[in-house]
């Protein structure tokens, strides 16, 4: 353009471009805006040199500062790990009663145990440890193998009926029906007697006969009064909690051909420290003895 053309109406310079008689006014960006724009370009260039930016065929430029978000994560994880190390060390060195007695250790153990529980235990026991038919509820005060801290620790550490562990908890109730140790009538009678212990629906006429059958066949493990024996893993039959159900059918089925739950031994898989934390957590759910 040789000379500037000024639009008569607005008094603004035109760009000289014209379409169908319409001319474009030249209203450039404010200078601060323009310079900000240039600065961002310079910044972007510097950024791509300093930081990983340009994709190459199989990799990308690494940047002069050597920054990597993966390395950042690894560093943060290591820092978190290091921050936990001293508490974990103390948990490893303290016996389980000592952990529960120490406020800081028990708070840490409960939190760590809760997350470990979510990963390894919730599949069977439920995310709230509320259990399911055949899988014990860990919130209540009924414990097959004992509810003290040490009992719980031992159960988690060695599992229940877990063949690969020599110290696993083992109990085996005979299949009184399947192996024809009792007549069907006797099974029915003893079932009625057992249900009568906790006041469930039962046939009162069979209770007397059932009592005799119970005394001869069951009392050695479940106790004379039916309150069970944790040393043998024999459930309490006189309380309100029934692992396999409290109906007549369920009790008869369990006497005839009992189901036996299995829990893996976690000590070898998770290590003693994690098992301690799990035990403290389960004990804190409200039913611990």
């Amino acid at each position, binding site marked *: 353009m040789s000379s500037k053309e000024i639009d008569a109406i607005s008094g603004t310079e035109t760009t000289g471009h014209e379409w169908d008689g319409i001319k474009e006014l030249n209203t450039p960006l404010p200078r601060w805006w323009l310079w900000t724009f240039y600065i961002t370009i310079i910044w972007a260039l510097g950024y791509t040199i300093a930081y990983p930016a340009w994709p190459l065929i199989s990799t990308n430029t690494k940047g002069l500062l050597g920054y990597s978000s993966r390395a950042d994560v690894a560093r943060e994880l290591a820092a978190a790990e290091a921050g936990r190390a001293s508490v974990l060390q103390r948990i490893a060195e303290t016996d389980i009663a000592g952990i529960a007695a120490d406020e800081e250790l028990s708070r840490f153990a409960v939190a760590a145990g809760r997350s470990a529980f979510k990963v390894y235990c919730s599949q069977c026991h439920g995310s709230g440890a509320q259990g399911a038919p055949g899988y014990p509820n860990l919130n*209540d*005060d009924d414990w097959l193998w004992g509810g003290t801290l040490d009992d719980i620790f031992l159960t988690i550490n060695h599992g229940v009926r877990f063949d690969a562990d020599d110290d696993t908890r083992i109990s085996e109730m005979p299949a009184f029906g399947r192996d024809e140790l009792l007549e069907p009538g006797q099974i029915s009678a003893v079932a009625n007697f057992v249900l009568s212990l906790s006041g469930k629906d039962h046939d009162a006429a069979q209770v007397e006969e059932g009592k005799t059958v119970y005394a001869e066949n069951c009392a050695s493990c479940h106790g004379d009064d039916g309150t069970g024996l944790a040393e043998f893993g024999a459930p309490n039959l006189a309380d*309100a*909690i029934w692992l396999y159900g409290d109906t007549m059918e369920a009790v008869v089925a369990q006497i005839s051909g009992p189901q036996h739950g299995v829990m893996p031994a976690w000590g070898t898989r998770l290590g003693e420290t994690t098992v301690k934390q799990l035990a403290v957590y389960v004990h*804190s759910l*409200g*039913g611990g003895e």
Partner: protein
Amino acid sequence: MNVIEQQNTAQFEVEAINRRDRQTPLYAARQKIHPKRAEGTFRRLKWLVMFVTLGIYYAAPWLRWDRGPYAPDQAILVDLYHRRFYFFFIEIWPQEFYYVAGLLVMAGVGLFLVTSSVGRAWCGYTCPQTVWVDLFLWVERFVEGDRNARIKLDAAPWSAAKVARRTVKHATWLAISVATGGAWIFYFADAPTLARDVVSGTAPGIAYMTIAVLTSTTYVLGGFMREQVCIYMCPWPRIQAAMLDENSLTVTYNDWRGEPRSRHAKKMAAEGRPIGDCVDCNACVVVCPMGIDIRDGQQLECITCALCIDACDGIMDKLGRERGLISYATLADYNRNMAIAAPAGTIDPTIARDGEGRLNSSFRKTTWRSILRYRTGLYFAVWALIGLVMLYALMHRSRLDINVLRDRNPVFVQLSDGSIRNGFTVKILNMMPEPRTIGISLDGLPAAQMTLADSSQGPSNLLFFEAEPDKLKVVKVFVRADPDILGNGSHDFSFVAQDMTGSETARYAAKFETGRNQ
């Protein structure tokens, strides 16, 4: 140089930056304003306001207030880290933020009240931008001289003397800016400790960053952008303009007595041509920090600092005329006076004054009574009511609170004796800066008992907890009840927290779920 002696008064060559006939489109470069020093009532009032507001700003964080050994002793403290706000005898927890919201509502209604009665007084006297620009101008005047000397210095070539003056000015500005940013941080931490840390270089990075940011904004906004902040950046002028009515005070040029203005009053009078009081000396324009001419009428740029009133009153005194050619006046009074002075549509100065040059007594002078109106009365009533309600709430608020969160997984647990247990996370809020023993009991749940996970207390229907001063105590409480006594379904009850040494109680409604259908 540009001052012409005439009629005992100086005449200034100055033009309003926003003259209608010279208005340029946007993106025009800024015209630098060199405000002249003003003297008078409003200038003195503004010095006083500056002294008080800056005094409060700088001194407030250093005031002490004894709250005992468990709380900080700083009178005004926004403790972001511990989520506490202290204001003398008031301590606010985050969940009591509605007090701050109430203050904001009061500030909003207060803005209505102030603006409808005295116009843009906030802009003219107390806005930080105005106060700091005033302070920066004072420094500039002290170092470089008043208007003419500054214009001369601006135009002068760079010399050692100019460099020296500029250096001193900017150094002083920067010192003020650093002090501004430096004072701000003391509201957020213990002032004496933080001051030591800042000086020794051990203060947290955010403190230095805050100082840096506020230093740069103070320096740039106060030293360079000045009136442009008010004209282009601030929404306040637009909002306030909507709140003014015909009875609000505004800085007004009373053209009903000023026009027709003349620079040659004596000559005009000798020729027998009627003239008004304005001698067109531009004293009102030259003192204006916004660089405008108030005689063009009300305009967005006017922050109503009233310095033009001072300037004009000085001229009127010299001329032996009545003050108030430029004055605080309401639009209603102005219109009324205008109707008297200009019955035919043009101003007739012969109506405005009698033979001795005294102003017509039928003109109305705006007095402080103009602020007493239904509208302002209503605003004041609303404002005061909110304040009183908040004060009452503050005096009667509880310093003990309880929040309860029930376990949802599992919702209920059956125990071996047939009873049902629900788990609750109970949060005890001890908002007093002293340790207290808090009792937690159950209300409305017959024969229910509480136990704790660690079996340290209970089963009982009253548990005791030691609540640390000014802290939240979280405990897991198990509630067990026999559904045979209680009945099936869910049962409403309350957790009751009680200060065992005082009388404060707090309740929280909860539900006990038996897990059995009704």
